[in-house]
């Protein structure tokens, strides 16, 4: 296990170094000067030069890369060009929205997908199965931003139960904050729940066809007892993989939903930073997301081992 962890850690670090280099170079290639963006089309050339100097934009490329990475290693993400506050401050504010939103959506998605997938698998070809399959087909097909707009139309504009978007901040209390995240979470969760329910169903059906299930039934367990005690756990591996992927997807990919609901999350921070050429922010957020994805993949690997003892043994 230790050797395995060490190997994983090494590949994790290599991925990060490679990612940081790619991110840095890509941002250098992209046309656009942050200083001229800030000062606009009437800018005085002298003021522009002064600002470039202040922002350290005239230093050589390798030096800027090393300064950035060295800062990252010490937990210093630099200072945003446009906002002029530490990037770490910006990120931590945004994570406080994106992370809860992701977890909220993931929880909703799992809460919907598990029962739906299990019922569909347990009563294959029944009316329940057909309606779950039909509904999930629809759920996969509907783009989440469109679904989000429909939610806004119904619950914000017509019923006035919710705000059309925005986030009051956690200072406003847990209730209002959660409320503000509810519509976005539902919009994010629906397609994910549909995918998850379908995976849950097919994985469970595969497991139910296995020999050990017949043995379990032969030992005298009822259908549902066998399903709950033996099949479910074995069917979880592909489901966990999907959940892991979904977490990364939701954390990094909430950008469209964040725009529809104008939530100040990480996705919008990156989006805004790219248009404003706030390179420091873009780099730091992207590297952080890369890091999060790598860590989540690692955690999912560990979860496999917990779910399936066979994997644990192999790895030793």
């Amino acid at each position: 296990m230790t050797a395995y962890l060490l190997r994983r850690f090494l590949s994790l670090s290599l991925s990060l170094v490679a990612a940081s280099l790619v991110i840095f170079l890509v941002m250098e290639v992209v046309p656009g000067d942050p200083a001229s963006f800030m000062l606009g089309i009437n800018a005085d050339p002298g003021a522009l030069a002064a600002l470039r100097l202040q922002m350290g934009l005239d230093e050589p490329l390798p030096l800027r890369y090393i300064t950035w990475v060295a800062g990252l290693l010490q937990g210093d993400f630099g200072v945003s060009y446009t906002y002029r506050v530490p990037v770490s401050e910006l990120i931590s504010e945004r994570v406080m929205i994106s992370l809860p939103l992701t977890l909220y959506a993931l929880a909703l998605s799992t809460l919907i997908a598990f029962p739906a997938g299990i019922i569909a698998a347990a009563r294959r070809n029944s009316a329940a199965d057909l309606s779950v399959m039909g509904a999930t087909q629809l759920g996969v097909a509907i783009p989440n931003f469109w679904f989000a707009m429909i939610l806004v139309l119904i619950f914000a504009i017509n019923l006035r139960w919710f705000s059309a978007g925005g986030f009051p901040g956690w200072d406003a209390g847990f209730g209002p904050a959660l409320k503000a995240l509810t519509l976005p979470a539902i919009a994010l969760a629906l397609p994910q729940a549909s995918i998850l329910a379908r995976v849950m169903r097919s994985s469970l059906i595969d497991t139910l066809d296995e020999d050990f299930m017949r043995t379990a039934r032969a030992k005298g367990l009822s259908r549902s007892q066998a399903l709950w005690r033996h099949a479910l756990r074995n069917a979880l591996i592909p489901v966990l993989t999907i959940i892991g992927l979904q977490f990364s997807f939701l954390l990094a990919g909430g950008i469209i939903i964040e725009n529809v609901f104008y939530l100040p999350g990480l996705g919008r921070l990156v989006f805004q930073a790219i248009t404003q050429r706030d390179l420091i922010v873009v780099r730091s957020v992207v590297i952080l997301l890369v890091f999060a994805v790598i860590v989540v993949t690692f955690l999912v690997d560990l979860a496999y081992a917990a779910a399936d003892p066979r994997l644990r043994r192999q790895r030793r």
Partner: protein
Amino acid sequence: MTRTAITATAASILALGLAFGPAPALAAKTSASIGMQLEPPNLDPTGGAAAAIDEVVYANVFEGLTRFGADGSILPALAESWEISEDGLTYTFKLRTGVTFHDGSGFDAEDVKFSLDRARADESTNAQKALFADIASVEVVDPATIKVTLSQPNGSFLFNMAWGDAVIVAPETAADNAAKPVGTGPFTFAEWVKGDRVDLARNPAYWGEPVKLETVTFKFISDPTAAFAAMMAGDLDAYPAFPAPENLVQFEADPRFAVIIGSSEGETILAMNNKKAPLDNILVRQAITHAIDRQAIIDGAMFGYGTPIGTHFAPHNPAYLDLTAQSAYDPEKSKALLEEAGVSDLTLSLKLPPPSYARRGGEIIAAQLREVGIDTEITNVEWAQWLEDVFKGKNFDLTVISHTEPMDIGIYGRDDYYFQYADPDFQAIMADLANASDPDKRTELMQAAQQKIADDYVNAYLFQLPRTGVADAKLKGLWPNSPTQANDMTGVYWEE
């Protein structure tokens, strides 16, 4: 078992919905939330050009010696009155007394000297440094009097001092204004939730008439669909520069809302690269202007909102000359001019920045140019790319852009400006204008300048960008026009 799980889930979701039911109606409203498309990068109007900065803080948080009124006139602000010497070189400002900054420190002539000297210093990053270029010295006469000496007469000096870039800041807090603005205005800065909103609160110690609103929230909603939903859902009370003109009809039809159409300082032009062949030929440029049907662009791209212009000047300005007839839509004339110039099989690049006037208008322009035999290669670019490629690199033939600074005809005299005109005769008119302080003489020179660039067909002048806003029908006192980039909230109130 599974069925109960589903029922329980459904029940809890329903309960969640009920618990989040409609909020009780509030008593007399003393707050307003205002929608804006772009979030300011920082809140220091003296250190950045972003219009969004002024749209939050101008007149609300910061004040200058003079200020713009709703109609674009120049009004006294921190300067109560002023005297101009005979030769037009010395301005003596009498300052208001009893004014304090939001941090409690007092305002006096030293603050004015500090602010003006800071803006014109070598290491200044003020985006509009040119506003201060003529200042030779700033002298404190006594705490309530300041004397500004110019190196040459400048008829627009009081106008320049009204810009957001010329607001008065305190030496103690100037460095932190980007994140924590401290001014003398009727609202104090309360909070900035980045990516979401800026909150302002009434300044109880304001020197002037206290404002009626207790709090103002500026919310940043860039997506037009989301902005529409936020207005419809009642999350916003007003959206003074609404990004989607196509939605205005729906607001007009709804008695809850008032649609406010005003004019802005944005001259929207089809800019041409005057030094790049074949656009260096005036006949080709003239041909392009005659190929363009302004009304079709206004109808197609702006849903009918916008005033056609024939030169780079705002139609609401008293000195405006209507020169649209000189470059009227005439495809036949355009073809004849192209033939005269000996140009055929012309393909020009057309670079379009993100705003819808440019993207939609660009498509229409391309179709109109095709009618006279000019092909275009359209490239959509982001702002940063536009600045780098078009503005700085001058790597373009045509581009559509709105110049939103007030009275910015002077850009035509700049050396090395992106459309590369810089005609010496035009520069001479500008130099005379700077030295003229007689109003009639100034009007005459401004009109000469307008005529000059129209005669040279520097760019194709399309329309004055309208300011299309929407507000709750009971919210009164918003500026209909935008003589400068601002959302002045000082006169805004709720009608009972």
